């Protein structure tokens, strides 16, 4: 039975959807804090370097794989590098699926804070201690559950409407809305007395800080997590891309657009922080405050700081609506990724969405009830994204980098084509970055006081190896079934480099 596959109606529609995929809470929530923690202006250099040295090459590769194979992750890996490697696509999908479970909880937190901001509830928080207690009570008492359900339900409903009426239409609204809201919040922040101290912090480059390897690794990590490169999300959306369309230019638009949104978010947050405190030290402490499950700046300090500026209730509602739009636009990409794989396995779309909705809600319940569980999952699967990026690079190398450029990237009608230099970028630099980053994060975890091998610790190497190991063993065990269901019985499909 041949499935009638929808396509994005225009390049604008695809780009908006892909931007929605890339721009998420990592831009609005994580970036300002990481930016502040890592020397301010100096951080911009590694962050921008790795946009071009990690994120954009992987985005180009993902887009090429999706367009070439017209399959979700499992089918794409199986088609490109052989059926016995389909499990690698399964691993990437497992990582993004596990992230989806707790990401929906985060989207629920954003929704709840938006509603509370609109109702004026945030103005009742007297100080940061009260704000932190309120957040911890909300995030662990069961109140996060209905908001998790609402967020996942909204995402599933959009996916249910289809690629054009659902994904494309929602992102055509959410992304311009997000940009406008962040601009409004940034203009408000920049017009506060003392905001220039925030700008000075953001754009003064301490060149000596560039000698610190940690700055480079944080830049790489932020770029990898924020752009969505290596998650398989752009691969999934590219299944629905039109035949024509320049995937190199599209990937550049997505990468630059993602980082542009991050800068807007930083301009909304950091000048507000610096304008709110008389001394640099106080402002710096707040800007870098991690708090429970790294929620400190966003869910503890932002509600307090925005209340203290003129029209604070309005602007905190604007901020949390922007955060909600960012979270939702990424969540729907994640739900589509899982749905696409189930459809490739033979399930009809409506049923696949039902399964994803039920599993997604159930999978997020532990994170909606426990910040420790949430932190563990964020650690394990956030780090798992590095492995996902490594698998993509492996697939490219195994397929052959010259062949990859010819078959998947430099297609007829492309306005931008890639030369041999791209081979070195994807075949050498990206794998080296992957190895260095994985080792660095693992070594970091040795110093955090928990026995590194303990599989039940919250954040250490042991819990990563344990959970990744389970995923790999299960996927290897079902690899044959996965590839046969996705690509048909062995012998009926070329399995390597063929056109499905």
């Amino acid at each position, binding site marked *: 039975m041949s499935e*009638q*596959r*929808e*396509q994005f*109606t*225009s*390049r*604008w529609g695809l*780009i908006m959807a892909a931007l929605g995929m890339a721009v998420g809470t990592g831009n609005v929530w994580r970036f300002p804090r990481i930016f502040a923690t890592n020397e301010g*202006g100096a951080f*911009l250099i590694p962050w*921008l370097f790795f946009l071009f040295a990690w994120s954009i090459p992987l985005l180009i590769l993902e887009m090429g794989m999706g367009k070439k194979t017209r399959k979700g992750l499992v089918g794409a890996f199986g088609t490109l590098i052989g059926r016995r490697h389909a499990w690698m696509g399964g691993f990437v999908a497992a990582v993004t699926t596990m992230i989806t479970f707790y990401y929906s909880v985060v989207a629920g937190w954003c929704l709840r804070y938006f509603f509370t901001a609109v109702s004026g509830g945030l103005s009742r928080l007297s100080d940061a201690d009260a704000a932190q207690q309120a957040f911890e009570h909300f995030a662990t008492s069961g109140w996060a559950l209905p908001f998790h359900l609402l967020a996942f339900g909204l995402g599933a409903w959009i996916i249910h409407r289809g690629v*054009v009426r659902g994904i494309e239409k929602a992102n055509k609204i959410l992304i311009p809305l997000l940009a406008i809201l962040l601009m409004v919040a940034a203009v408000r922040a920049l017009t506060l007395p003392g905001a*220039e101290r925030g*700008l*000075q912090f*953001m*754009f*003064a*480059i301490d060149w000596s800080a560039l000698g610190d390897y940690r700055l480079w690794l944080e830049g790489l990590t932020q770029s990898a997590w924020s752009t969505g490169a290596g998650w398989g999300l752009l691969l999934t959306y590219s299944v629905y891309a*039109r035949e*024509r*369309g*320049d995937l190199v*230019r*599209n990937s*550049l*638009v997505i990468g*630059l*657009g993602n*980082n*542009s949104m991050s*800068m807007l978010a930083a301009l909304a947050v950091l000048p507000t922080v610096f304008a709110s405190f008389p001394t640099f030290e106080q402002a710096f402490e707040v800007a870098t405050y991690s708090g429970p499950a790294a929620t400190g700046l966003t869910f503890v300090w932002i509600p307090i700081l925005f209340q203290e500026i003129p029209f604070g209730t309005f602007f905190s509602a604007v901020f949390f609506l922007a955060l909600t739009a960012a979270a939702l636009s990424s969540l729907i990409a994640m739900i589509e990724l899982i749905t696409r794989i189930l459809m490739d396995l033979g399930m009809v779309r409506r049923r696949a969405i039902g399964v994803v909705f039920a599993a997604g809600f159930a999978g997020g319940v532990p994170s909606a009830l426990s910040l420790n569980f949430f932190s563990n999952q964020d650690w394990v699967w956030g780090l798992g994204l590095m492995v996902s990026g490594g698998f993509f690079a492996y697939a490219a190398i195994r397929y052959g980098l010259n062949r990859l450029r010819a078959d998947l990237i430099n297609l007829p*009608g492309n*306005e931008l084509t890639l030369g041999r230099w791209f081979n070195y970028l994807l075949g050498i630099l990206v794998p080296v970055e992957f190895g260095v980053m994985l080792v660095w994060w693992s070594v970091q975890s040795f110093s955090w006081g928990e026995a590194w091998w303990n599989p039940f610790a919250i954040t250490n190497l042991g819990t990563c190896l344990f959970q990744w190991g389970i995923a790999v063993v299960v996927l290897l065990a079902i690899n044959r079934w996965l590839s046969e269901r996705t690509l048909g019985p062995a012998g009926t499909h070329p399995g390597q480099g063929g056109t499905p």
Partner: protein
Amino acid sequence: MTTGSIITMIIVLGGLWGGFAWLLRSAIRSEEHRDKGSGPQSTTG
């Protein structure tokens, strides 16, 4: 703000936002240009 910070701000924001806007505009224009010669697109494959 120091002069160095202002220059960095202009380079970073100008490069990012300007580059993004230019690429987005040229991507949309090139599609419009191609679509003019090829008629309407189907939304199903």
